């Protein structure tokens, strides 16, 4: 079985080999044409840029807990997903080629798709970096397109941040105005209530109670001090003692304890202290105690009066509700005002190009060497395809002609015996046969020479293509 298959394969190879001149005739022009086309393909340059979206800039860190938004605010996720939508690409296309504005819808869609195919965005892998690549035959245009994409990305992010934060500020402004209005109404209600019930208004005030309690505590302390305070010595002795102590401290700062002046002053101080200690204790001042006692009683009475006024009546409850309501409104308004300030700070922080949120870590660059086309690979593919086409043509020709390549085929086809086979001897060929073979050989040689020459010459005529359609950069500079 395997032998039969091999035999059949061998016959097919023989059949194709018989038309090798056709293989050359088909393959060489095909390859020459393909090589000419490949070598004339314009060089392709790839421009690349890299952006870093900082999740926590230094400025953001400085405003931490003050700024309205967190560190992840403004990440480029949405923009990098929407950067290549049709609207953005149309704008980019019109900048690259203003004539594209005149394209009909179908051509514009094709041009947009082609542009999208040349742009590649390496998404953020979580480290904050992502890259933009663009390939073009014109290196300057490649660089400019990447620059435009870069600017578009940053501006879109900043605009998005600005819009979000401005919306937040506007919302807070509306809320603050609303709370201000409510608070104003509450204050008016309180004023009316206070006018109608003046006594309740003061007593109800917890600050009054607290003030009364504080006054009681002060009066009690004064009373106890009056009871405990002895009237030892005169105020003149006390003054002397204090002056001596101050003088000794001054001397010690400059001299040692054995310095004569220090010793003398210390002796004087000891003497004065000993004399005051030896004197009999003075009697307690009755007047001062009585006065302190009276102040304490009065304070306690005011406290009892204030505390008694906070309990229980319907008016008190109504007053308390009004005050609570006003306090809540006031506090909320204060909080909203604080948040508005934070939003405005965030607006300044995240919608400013110089905030450092978006850093171009690698400006658009175009390597001097083109990235494509891979002429070697294409030439190999072209050679393979041309050879396959030639082989296919040869096989087709053999199949159409129905030629025989083995005596077995003759026997199987016609059912007649094969008396023998005679090998081909070139010397037996007639003049005509040799002439045909020579012509075929010559044609093959000429075609091979043409293919070789085209492959050699093409590189010298392929430079400079792709620049003809270049638009001056200032036409689409952002």
């Amino acid at each position, binding site marked *: 079985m395997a032998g039969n298959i091999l035999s059949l394969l061998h016959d097919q190879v*023989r*059949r194709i080999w*018989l*038309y090798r001149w056709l293989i050359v005739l088909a393959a060489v022009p095909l390859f020459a044409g393909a090589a000419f086309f490949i070598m004339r393909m314009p060089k392709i340059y790839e421009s690349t840029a890299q952006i870093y979206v900082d999740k926590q800039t230094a400025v953001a860190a400085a405003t931490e807990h003050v700024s309205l938004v967190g560190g992840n605010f403004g990440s480029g996720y949405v923009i990098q997903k929407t950067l290549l939508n049709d609207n953005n690409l149309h704008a980019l296309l019109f900048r690259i080629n203003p004539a594209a504005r005149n394209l009909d819808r179908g051509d514009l869609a094709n041009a947009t798709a082609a542009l999208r195919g040349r742009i590649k965005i390496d998404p953020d892998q979580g480290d904050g970096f992502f890259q933009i690549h663009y390939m073009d035959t014109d290196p300057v245009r490649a660089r400019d397109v990447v620059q435009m994409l870069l600017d578009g990305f940053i501006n879109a992010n900043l605009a998005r941040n600005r819009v979000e934060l401005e919306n937040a500020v506007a919302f807070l402004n509306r809320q603050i105005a609303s709370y201000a209005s409510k608070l104003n109404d509450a204050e008016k209600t309180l004023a009316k209530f206070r006018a109608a019930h003046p006594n309740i208004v003061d007593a109800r005030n917890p600050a009054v109670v607290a003030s009364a309690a504080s006054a009681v505590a002060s009066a009690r302390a004064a009373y106890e001090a009056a009871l405990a305070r002895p009237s030892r010595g005169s105020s003149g002795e006390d003054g002397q003692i204090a002056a001596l102590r101050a003088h000794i401290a001054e001397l010690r700062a400059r001299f040692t304890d054995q310095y004569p002046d220090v010793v003398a002053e210390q002796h004087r101080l000891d003497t004065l202290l000993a004399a005051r200690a030896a004197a009999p204790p003075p009697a307690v001042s009755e007047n001062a105690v009585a006065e302190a006692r009276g102040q304490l009683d009065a304070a306690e009475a005011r406290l009892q009066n204030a505390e008694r006024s906070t309990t229980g009546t319907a008016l008190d409850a109504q007053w308390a509700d009004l005050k609570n309501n006003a306090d809540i409104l006031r506090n909320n308004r204060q909080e909203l005002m604080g948040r508005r300030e934070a939003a405005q700070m965030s607006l300044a922080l995240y919608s400013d190009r110089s905030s450092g949120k978006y850093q171009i870590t690698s400006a658009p660059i175009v390597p001097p060497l083109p990235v494509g086309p891979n002429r070697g690979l294409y030439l190999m593919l072209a050679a393979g395809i041309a050879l396959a086409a030639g082989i296919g043509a040869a096989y087709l020709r*053999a199949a159409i*002609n*129905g*030629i*025989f*390549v*083995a*005596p077995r085929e*003759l*026997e199987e*086809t*016609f*059912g*007649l*015996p*094969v*008396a*023998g*086979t*005679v*090998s*081909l*001897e070139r*010397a*037996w060929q*007639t003049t*005509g*046969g040799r002439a045909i073979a020579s012509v075929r050989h010559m044609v093959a040689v000429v075609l091979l020479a043409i293919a070789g020459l085209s492959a050699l010459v093409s590189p010298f005529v392929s430079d400079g293509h792709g620049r003809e359609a270049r638009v001056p950069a200032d036409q689409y500079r952002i």
Partner: protein
Amino acid sequence: MNSPVTFSVMTPVDSGEVSASSLDKSLEGRDGAVKRIGSVATPRFDESRTREEFRVIKGHVMSRIANADGHRREPRNVLITSASPREGKTTITLGLAMSFMFDRDARVVLIDADMRSPDLSRRMGLEGEAGLLDYLEDDQMGWNDVVYPTSVRGVFAVPSGSPRIYAPELIAGPRMKFLLETLRQGIGRNGIIMMDSGSVLSCSETISLATHAGQILFVAAKGQTKRSDIDEGLGRLHRQAGPIDESRVSMVFNKSGRSQSPVRYSRRG
């Protein structure tokens, strides 16, 4: 030996009798002068493989003759033809003739019956000599007027003769049959008559010749002969000179690759 000479040795036309010895005497022309000798040569025949390839074909032909069992057509009349031109009929004819050079008693008559392209006559150097068509037209000519000796012992040649537009009709006439019968007597039991004809599809006289042939070697060239042409050629033979079956028709696969040759010999002779 470059020009024909007249002779007056034999008058086979009248007698219709010919023997092997008289065939050998065909060296002399009607006026007694020596005839031109045909050159039978095949390039590379010195190679063992080529010789063996033709020996195989010769063996096939001879076995058919030996095994003939009352066939209505003479198996020693071998027609060599093909479907279309340039497939190697003349080469096969010459090679087969060469293969008889080692058979002492064999006699082979080569008839160039390809009137469109008389390559056999040209290659044997008998172009322009009186030949088959002259004999068929001129009743006064004898068989020995058109039979020429060749450089190979036992091999004789009948060139095509002067071309005529009515050659097919002459070949289809009874004088052709008479010539074949006469020559067959001359070659004896071990001899054969090989008719190198034109291709079936291009020469109508080939069909006429086929009616006289007990064996037909149908040459097909590798990578050249188309199946449709062979189909049509065999069909035409079958309809007009049939029947065509495996006892009468054999294929010869010409111009094959050396690797396809059943004979495994080196190039050394």
